[in-house]
């Protein structure tokens, strides 16, 4: 019995050691997936929720052109995609914002390669309200007053709006989680890099924002214009007082009249080769751009 107890203690220590050895193991970067042009290849593609629809449409359309290449798409947010690229666990990161200098530096430190950017399209960030809301246009200043930390607009009557069929007055602000490129873009362009007011409902996807706006008469939200649905209304945006309000359309996005439009990009680590390069070339070619336009975004190619 005494012997077995000593054994027992030994085993406990062994298991402990095993646990401790395993712990750091889970932080090792994942080995990069196949990158060669040999078939069959799998391309890992992750990032922006704004772009996840078009990324999936691309992957599907590409399968009919190159059945030997399998593209795996997932969302999570621009920040998540870029973080995965830095660890080398994806081939292509989608981002609705530009890569930050510190992220590029981290990529260099981790892998010795520089991230390479490809602009694959444009997107107008639309401001949505419920379809029953009589409001048609809103200014950037008003948006900052609604969403900004020091903003004073909290009720619809503050901007002279009466929403029919409800006695609620409070503006329900719908925003995005902080890893979202859309969130950062809105903060930069509308709030001038200042903080959001606390208490907004932070959704985990572009589609969720539009869905919640369509079921909440007193709400306001922002998302890529590709996510517009019959239950919501896109507002015209007035950049500065005295200027006309501009609706989000392909023309106003390309001409930069619409004040909160942005480019959509994909990133690779180092210059892409093989299947990844072919895929990105196809994305930016006429077929890929047609798919992008069908998903509700603005193509790079001018027709």
């Amino acid at each position, binding site marked *: 019995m005494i012997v077995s107890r000593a054994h027992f203690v030994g085993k406990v220590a062994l298991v402990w050691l095993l646990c401790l050895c395993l712990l750091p193991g889970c932080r090792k970067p994942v080995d990069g997936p196949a990158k060669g042009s040999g078939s069959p290849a799998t391309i890992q593609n992750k990032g922006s929720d704004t772009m996840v629809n078009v990324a999936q449409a691309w992957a599907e359309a590409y399968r009919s052109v190159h059945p030997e290449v399998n593209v795996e798409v997932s969302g999570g947010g621009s920040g998540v995609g870029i973080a995965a690229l830095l660890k080398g666990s994806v081939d292509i990161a989608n981002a609705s914002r530009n890569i930050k200098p510190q992220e590029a530096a981290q990529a260099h430190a981790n892998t010795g390669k520089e991230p390479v950017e490809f602009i694959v399209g444009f997107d107008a960030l639309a401001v949505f309200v419920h379809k029953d809301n009589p409001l048609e246009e809103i200014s950037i200043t008003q948006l900052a007053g609604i969403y900004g930390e020091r903003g004073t607009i909290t009720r619809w009557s503050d901007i002279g709006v009466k929403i029919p069929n409800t006695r609620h007055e409070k503006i329900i602000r719908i925003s995005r989680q902080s890893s979202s490129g859309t969130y950062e873009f809105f903060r930069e362009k509308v709030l001038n890099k200042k903080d959001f007011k*606390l208490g907004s409902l932070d959704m985990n996807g572009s589609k969720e924002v539009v869905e919640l706006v369509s079921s909440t008469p007193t709400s306001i939200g922002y998302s890529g214009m590709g996510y517009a649905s019959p239950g919501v209304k896109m507002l015209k945006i007035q950049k500065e007082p005295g200027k006309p309000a501009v609706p989000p359309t392909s023309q106003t996005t390309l001409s930069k009249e619409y004040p909160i439009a942005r480019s959509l990009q994909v990133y690779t680590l180092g210059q892409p080769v093989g299947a990844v390069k072919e895929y990105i070339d196809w994305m930016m070619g006429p077929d890929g751009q047609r798919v992008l336009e069908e998903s509700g975004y603005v193509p790079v190619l001018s027709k």
Partner: protein
Amino acid sequence: MVGESVLEWIIRLSGISAIIFVLAIFVFVFREAAPVLSNKEFSLVEFFTSIAWYPTSEENVRYGTLALIAGTFSVTALAMALAVPFGLGAAIYVSEFCGPKTRETLKIVIELLAAVPSVVWGFIGLTVMSRLLVNYGNAPVGVNMLNGGIILALMAVPIIVSIGEDALKAVPDSFREAGIALGASRWQLVYRVLLPAARNGLLAAVLLGIGRAVGETMAVLMATGHAVQIPHGILDPIRTLTANVAAELGEAPAGSAHYRVLFMTGVLLFTITFVVNLTADFVIRGVKRK
């Protein structure tokens, strides 16, 4: 002989593995969180007393979790206010009032309720419950504290019922017989004899229900609206500690202050559930001593 002793060791290891895993998890979570304590941007006072949660701010990064703590506790309290009367009522009914056939049916159905995955509950909250609250509850927005509270209550009731029923069953029949012999009605028997006798077990049932509600993530992430604010009414959207970790950990670069603060909220959650479970455990042990 050798085979038998090997088998004995394997069984013994399985037995103690739970302890090892709990310790390993705690060591891991704490090891990831600890370095932030020496970070100048982070202060423990702010962590516990500020409602400002701005982990990715460009002008002023702030890590205040007061609103998240308030969110967690308020939705848990609301869930318990709904679940405890229903859960204990159901436990009393199943244990004392219904016939054997109804009891078997009810127990099976209640166990089924416990088996519904939490993401399904979240889905129900997001779609069905939120529409009901907007249309009939006059709520300005459907995802809010009440929605999360109802969903959590539905998840906690099965636990309260099954453990509460066990506690009532554990009261010796001699107590019941004595009560009836004294001419007590059924209700008097439950109220005056069984409830006091099973008090500890029922309390433990409630505490385990609380543990379930505090730790739940997916359902509250989907149903509560995920808004950082101190709620002023049950129709206000809130954010809980668990939902916050779930939503933000993926984005936070490993090793950054944000990442470590999220692990710190993990330590906080671990402490809360540990205290709740330990209390439940002590209470249950109190029952056995009697």
